[in-house]
Every structure is written in structure tokens, then in C-alpha cells.
């Protein structure tokens, strides 16, 4: 890839993307969407190597290079190791999708400090550690894309999600500050805020709760992971070159 100003000129060698939390759900779907756009894809996973290998197989079937890479975004050493492995086997990361997420719902009055920390560690600290690790090479290349997967919960409160919404609102704030820091270097940093998406994360919810969520959403249904992945792939691509620091709701109208 060569870069002239903000102009993006893809060459034979594909742009390399790293997606965290990509063994399932939105991350998994994003790998496929990015592969379809011709990007080489590193599939980051922590606990589910099979799901990651499945994403690798799907990406490879699209004719791009792909690799499953173990990454615990909460851990600086693990993040560095993962980036080094991607750099060695695919090349420098030009597109980073901070998707790895954690949620454990509970009313604040009885919410444990451990769960608060666990939520912030993955959703906020993890995105920071990965972004920081990715930025040096992006600055040097004068091109880069960071897409942070936040949540509609960053924009509107949810009872039982004090930690989750705090982490996602924090991620939106970080997105805007980073966008200002590096926006002059051909790098964009944006956030997507999915509403209710049919993924493993929302599976444990009871039918009654799901029904209530559906009623809150003008679209009248949950999103599929592909519907969110499409927006992530857009933000990662050359067409989105002037979108920076944006927070894009992908929520079927939930926060409208």
C-alpha cells in the first residue's frame, strides 16, 4: 500500500486488519466483511480458538490471507505479542477494530467491584492498549483506521448496565480524543454504537427481556452481526476517509 496525503492507493499487497474478540458475533462478522473488501485479516480471540479458526476459514475462502491470533486485550504483554505475530506473519496493522467486549449486568447497588473492573478492563483499557500499540506504525505510514465497537448503551442509559455504559461512553470519549490527536496524519478513529444484536453476548437474556428490547427498537427486531459489520467495514475502507471522530449508531433507531 502506498500513501500520498490522505489518498489511499491499494496495491497488490493487501491492507492488514486486526479484529479483537473475533471468534464470535460482531467481530466474527467483521472479519468476513473486511475479507470481502480485500483486506488480510488477523482474527483476534481470547477463549474460543475454534470460532477464530472458523473466521479464518471464511476469510481465506474470500481469497485473502488470514490468521487466528490469541490476544487478551487487558494485558499489555499479550497485546504486544499479538501485534508482533501479526506483523511477522501478515504485515503491519493498518486497520484495528477494537471489538472485544465484556458485559455482566446487575443493578449498581449490589454490583461487585470485580465486575466493574472486569468490564472497564476489557471494554476501555483493552481498546486503549490496542490503539496505542497500533498507532506508532500507523503514524509512520500516514494511514490508519481504528474502529471502536461501542454500544447504544454509551448514548442512552440502561438500568443494570452502569459499568457497561460507562465503559462504552468512555470508549466514545477516547475515540473523539484520538481522532483529534492523529486526524492530521491520515488516520481516522471512529466508533459504532450497535443496539441489540443477536450474538452470544445477548443470548442469556430471557425471552421477556428480549421482547422488551424489540419493542424499544423502531426496527422491531434485533440486528444481525452482519448489519453492524457492514458499517465497520465501511469505516475501515477508503470511502470513509473524511469520517473522523464520529459516533455512528447502528441500532435500528433505538437511540433516535
Amino acid at each position, binding site marked *: 500500500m502506498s500513501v500520498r496525503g490522505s489518498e489511499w492507493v491499494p496495491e497488490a499487497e493487501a491492507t492488514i486488519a486486526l479484529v479483537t474478540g473475533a471468534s464470535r458475533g460482531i467481530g466474527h462478522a467483521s472479519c468476513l466483511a473486511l475479507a470481502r473488501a480485500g483486506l488480510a485479516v488477523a482474527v483476534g480471540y481470547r477463549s474460543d480458538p475454534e470460532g477464530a479458526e472458523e473466521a479464518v476459514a471464511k476469510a481465506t475462502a474470500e481469497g485473502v490471507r488470514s490468521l487466528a491470533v490469541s490476544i487478551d486485550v487487558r494485558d499489555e504483554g499479550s497485546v504486544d505479542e499479538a501485534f508482533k505475530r501479526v506483523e511477522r506473519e501478515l504485515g503491519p496493522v493498518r486497520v484495528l477494530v477494537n471489538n472485544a467486549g465484556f458485559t455482566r449486568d446487575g443493578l449498581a447497588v449490589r454490583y461487585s467491584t470485580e465486575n466493574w473492573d472486569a468490564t472497564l478492563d476489557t471494554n476501555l483499557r483493552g481498546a486503549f492498549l490496542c490503539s496505542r500499540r497500533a498507532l*506508532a506504525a500507523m*503514524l*509512520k505510514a500516514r494511514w490508519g483506521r481504528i474502529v471502536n465497537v461501542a454500544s447504544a448503551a454509551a448514548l442512552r442509559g440502561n438500568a443494570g448496565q452502569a459499568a457497561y455504559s460507562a465503559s462504552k461512553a468512555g470508549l466514545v470519549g477516547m475515540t473523539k480524543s484520538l481522532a483529534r*490527536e*492523529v486526524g*492530521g*496524519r491520515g488516520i481516522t478513529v471512529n466508533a459504532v454504537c450497535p443496539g441489540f444484536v443477536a450474538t452470544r453476548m445477548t443470548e442469556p437474556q430471557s425471552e421477556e427481556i428480549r421482547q422488551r428490547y424489540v419493542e424499544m427498537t423502531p426496527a422491531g427486531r434485533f440486528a444481525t452481526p452482519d448489519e453492524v459489520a457492514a458499517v465497520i467495514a465501511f469505516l475501515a475502507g477508503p470511502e470513509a476517509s473524511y469520517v473522523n471522530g464520529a459516533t455512528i449508531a447502528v441500532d435500528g433507531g433505538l437511540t433516535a
Partner: protein
Amino acid sequence: MEMAELEQKVCKILADNLSVPEDQVTPSARFQEDLDADSLDLVEAVLALEEEFGVTIPEEEMEGVRTVGQAIQLVAAKLGVAA
């Protein structure tokens, strides 16, 4: 490495990174006032210096650095090159 050689190398890297002509990058040149470098320019220059010389320059140590000469001294100290 001799001090003169180090000085030359650092100045070249700074000139490349700050996109200024090499003859403007003298030890007395001030990053902000003379070379029009903002904080991110400086961070990028430090990243390049770290890579070139295989050293680590923590943010705290960069805080007092205002001139090219101070940057040269910082790298020299890291590498054990005497003035």
C-alpha cells in the same frame, strides 16, 4: 560512535520527521518556535530516534526537551556517547 556522527544522524532524522530543511536543524534550534513542531511531531520524531538507535526514551524524559541540542544530549546519554 563519535559525538559528531551522532549529532549528524539525530539532525538528519529530525529533519526528515519534521519535514524541515537539514540546515535549519542545528543544536540551538527550538522545536516549537524555530522548527514549527507540535507535540505529535515531537512524538513521531522520538519514535524514529528510538527505532534508529535502539533506545527507549520515556515521556518524562522528553518533557524538558525544547531544543535539538537537548535531544542530541538525551540520545547521547542513552548510548553512552561522551560529548
